[in-house]
């Protein structure tokens, strides 16, 4: 048994926040798509996985992690937009279960596609050379890359917040998530906005895949567990709330990493139990029904 010093707990807390940053990004993408289109993207984990694969692929191709961070989300987002345009769009107005089921089928195809392209074993992943090493946080040394994860997530969330709150496009997103009918009457091409939002959500999933790749095993099945975990985050935070997605993502990350320190065998279970508790006390989630950004 390791002795539990405040330093150790502190470091584990930062580890949890770094893990939670990935969860938060995933849930932000899910929430964005849901808030606008009322579609739960069951292929979100698969888009995350595709992001991790393409991230490594573009990194070896261009030799630059930064470049891959830009290219991969664009490619994944394009795949997302194609799926919205040709697979999800015909299903609008047919009931909420159908888009959900369709994306579930899509996730199967994406998983198999990566197996065909990159093999069933997956790809070796490593931290880019510049971001290796560790930083002294005052309570002990901490891997630099995990701090980068936290910073990158903060930047994405801040950028997204600015887009949603300060731009005309964001205004349409906010209005559209309240009442798409009125927005259409006002002359906005809602279908185009939906396409872009779906693309944006899947691009964020792809980005979180690139970012997460150096911290975990990259294989075609990696998105399967991630999907379940990002659902936990979304349910804890409240559907359609970006604020909730971020807070719940960090909370779930911290709960996971603290349990893996104190009672490792219950680590995976702990986050699902957290969700069950939230459901008992507050079925709508911590920030549920508070609007898209509230």
């Amino acid at each position: 048994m390791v002795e539990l010093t405040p330093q150790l707990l502190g470091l584990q807390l930062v580890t949890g926040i770094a893990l939670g940053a990935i969860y938060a990004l995933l849930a932000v993408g899910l929430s964005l798509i849901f808030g606008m289109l009322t579609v739960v993207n069951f292929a979100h984990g698969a888009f995350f996985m595709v992001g991790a694969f393409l991230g490594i692929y573009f990194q070896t191709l261009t030799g630059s992690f930064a470049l891959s961070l830009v290219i991969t989300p664009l490619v994944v987002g394009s795949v997302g937009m194609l799926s919205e345009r040709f697979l999800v769009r015909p299903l609008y107005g047919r009931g909420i279960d159908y888009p959900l089921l369709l994306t579930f089928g899509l996730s199967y195809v994406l998983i198999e596609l990566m197996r065909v392209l990159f093999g069933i074993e997956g790809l070796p992943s490593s931290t880019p050379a510049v971001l290796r090493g560790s930083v002294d946080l005052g309570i002990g040394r901490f891997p630099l890359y995990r701090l980068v994860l936290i910073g990158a997530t903060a930047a994405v969330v801040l950028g997204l917040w600015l887009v949603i709150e300060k731009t005309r496009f964001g205004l349409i997103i906010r209005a559209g998530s309240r009442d798409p009918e009125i927005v259409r009457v006002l002359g906005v091409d809602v279908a185009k906005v939906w396409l872009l939002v779906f693309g944006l959500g899947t691009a964020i999933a792809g980005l979180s895949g690139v970012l997460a790749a150096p911290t975990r095993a990259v294989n075609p099945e990696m998105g399967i567990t991630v999907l379940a975990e990002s659902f936990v985050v979304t349910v804890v935070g409240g559907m359609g709330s970006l604020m909730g997605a971020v807070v719940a993502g960090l909370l779930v990350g911290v709960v996971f990493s603290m349990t893996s320190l104190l009672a490792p065998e219950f680590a995976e279970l702990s986050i699902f139990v957290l969700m069950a508790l939230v459901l008992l006390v507050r079925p709508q989630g911590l920030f549920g029904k508070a609007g898209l950004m509230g």
Partner: protein
Amino acid sequence: MNELRGPITPVMAPRLTPLLTLISRHRVVSVLLFLLVFPWLMPYEALAVNILIFGLYAVGFNLLFGYTGMLSFGHAAFLGVGSYLTGMSIVHAHLNWLLAIAIGVGAAGLVGALMGHLAIRTRGIYFSMVTLALGQIVYYGFYKAERWTGGENGLRGVTVPAFELAGWTIDFTNPVTKYYIILGFVAIALGLVSRILASPFGAVIEAIRENEKRAAACGYDVARSKLLVFVLSATICGLAGSLRALHLSVVPIDSLHYLQSGQAVMMCLLGGMGTFFGPFVGAAVFLYLEDVVTTLTRHWMAVVGTIFMVFILFFPRGIWGSLIARWERATTPSAQT
């Protein structure tokens, strides 16, 4: 969505052709007559047993999804709990196989009550996400309890020794014997489901599917009905799991994973949700295709994913549901165009 699931229930189809009317009226007998000869239509008996078990699993799932309109992604929990508890009763406690089945089914019902209690607090898409996540609790629970469940390797050695029954020697290693024993249990379950659907309670759950608020306004206790149908559905899936443990003589850990829940969804939709025969048709097509396709290519997931998407986009009624719809159209030309 309502019009998609509307008049495809066999009970209320007086306009159908006489043969279909006959099948509809005696739906349990019809499906059993078909299942009696089914093993001889399949390339090998083990596939027939598999289809029988997964057909029952899809029937249990259909009760919740097709008839009540609640899309659960956590039904693997019931299949798995049924399998594991039956298996553990035989492997660790050396219990009689009938008792072991009863324990498996009871445990699945109990887990259904617990999960249902939490899950029915949510509705719509939320319900799907919550059932998926609650199902994963069960998955990780059994995964970690390695001492009793075998963890990642699954539970091995679920075997029933041959025994005498009314002068007959029953040996589970004989696939044909096994098929007909399992068919006996499936017959009981189908009779039960048919009875539920024909009862006033069956009408209530369909009313909830069509319009939950209106059902509540009519004075029905929606929450209680939802919980009850959830538990019933879990129990039937638990029975399918129990039988599967006896069939495979191992319990793979994957039987608890949410992808296994997804299989129930796929089978149900492929066959036709909200129809009595649909789930069996779906299970048969799914497993037969899997059997054929996996000998041709390694990329079964891409094939099944594509087929599933095509069905959602173009044939949301499923195979059996579309057939019924076509029959209906043919017999009532005035209703069309």
